[in-house]
């Protein structure tokens, strides 16, 4: 970890350097608030005595401190990202060298591992459903056969045939068995359907994993952007927050963007709590 910090942006940086990283740390040590407080008195005096040149200079200094703070923050975030990626590789046993050299290419590897999980669960779900598909007709055949025999048995008795001794426990047991095969057959079919439905986990977990794959891609792109930003003071100083009009349009699109299963349903007011809620909402809309 300490070794990694010393390396700063490491090999992932295409435009930055270790010297830049050191400068970031030094600049960041002097926070924006400190700079503002230190010049408060001087600025007040300059303004009260109408010394606009001095006041402008002080404001410029404060602005400069703000830029430096921002610059420091970018550097800090870049290092944090770098460390997070490195630790991720360590945790899943990807480190072949003492130093992780190819973060970005290994991010691709992380994605392929997650895709592997999706493929494995899909395979498992399919195998389960194969067995369900095989078992269902077996049970059905058993039930059909048993019901046919039961009907024949009933009509055999209805035709006046008797089996001499109705109280013979063997006949009673055969009668009960035939009835039971019908009833239990239905029960087994219901459970097979439940097993089938439970395989829906593969879809739901797969959607969540796909979101994580997207996140990894986003982090990867953010890292590239941050590395570029950290290498250029002017770019950083010129950063402006997204204008609100543009943001509103984007928010509208974001609002109904497909998200996959809700992980934290109970803590989110925007999310329905189940099918009953969906039905209520739809019926409130006139459905």
């Amino acid at each position, binding site marked *: 970890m300490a070794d990694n910090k010393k390396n700063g942006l490491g090999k992932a940086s295409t435009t930055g350097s270790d010297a830049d990283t050191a400068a970031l740390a030094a600049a960041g040590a002097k926070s924006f608030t400190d700079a503002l407080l230190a010049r408060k008195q001087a600025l007040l005096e300059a303004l009260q005595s109408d010394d606009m040149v001095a006041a402008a200079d002080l404001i410029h200094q404060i602005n400069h401190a703000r830029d430096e703070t921002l610059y420091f923050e970018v550097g800090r975030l870049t290092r944090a990202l770098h460390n997070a990626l490195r630790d991720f590789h360590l945790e899943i046993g990807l480190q072949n060298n003492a130093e992780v050299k190819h973060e970005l290419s290994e991010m691709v590897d992380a994605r392929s591992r997650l895709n592997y999980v999706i493929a494995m669960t899909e395979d498992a779900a399919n195998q389960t459903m194969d067995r369900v598909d095989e078992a269902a007709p077996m049970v059905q055949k058993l039930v059909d056969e048993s019901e046919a025999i039961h009907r024949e048995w009933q009509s055999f008795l209805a035709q006046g045939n008797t089996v001499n001794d109705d109280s013979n426990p063997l006949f009673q047991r055969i009668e009960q068995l035939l009835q039971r095969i019908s009833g239990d057959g239905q029960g087994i079919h219901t459970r097979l*359907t439940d097993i089938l439905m439970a395989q829906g986990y593969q879809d739901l977990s797969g959607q969540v994993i796909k979101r994580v794959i997207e996140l990894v891609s986003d982090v990867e792109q953010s890292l590239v952007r941050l590395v570029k930003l950290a290498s250029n003071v002017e770019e950083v100083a010129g950063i402006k927050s997204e204008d609100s009009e543009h943001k509103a349009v984007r928010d509208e699109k974001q609002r*109904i963007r*497909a998200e996959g299963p809700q992980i934290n*349903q109970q803590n989110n007011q925007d*999310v329905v709590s189940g099918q009953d809620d969906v039905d209520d909402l739809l019926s409130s*809309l006139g459905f």
Partner: protein
Amino acid sequence: MKILIVDDFSTMRRIIKNLLRDLGFTNTAEADDGSSALPMLENGQFDFLITDWNMPGMTGIDLLKACRASEKLKTLPILMVTAEAKRDQIIAAAQAGVNGYVVKPFTAAALQEKIEKIFERIDANR
């Protein structure tokens, strides 16, 4: 009754297909996103569409809107079966003209109930 099942996960398509078979609907076809489903719907004689929302390529909500904008498909009964569970999303689907909405994970009974309800309503309007 010919039914198209659209979901990017083959597992879910298979589950829905099996459930439909249990309900007596054996004539089904599958597609893995809206852009492959739309030409099938335009060129085939489908009576019912069951679609997921979250799919790469063309999403279910876009497929729904495309169907409603199509002369041929504007009255096609459409059931959305999806993990998307935000109120805004359900309202958006309703406004786009969906006929039913089932959230995943769902039960066999829930799916059956929604399908039956959709056809009851269609029969009542005939």
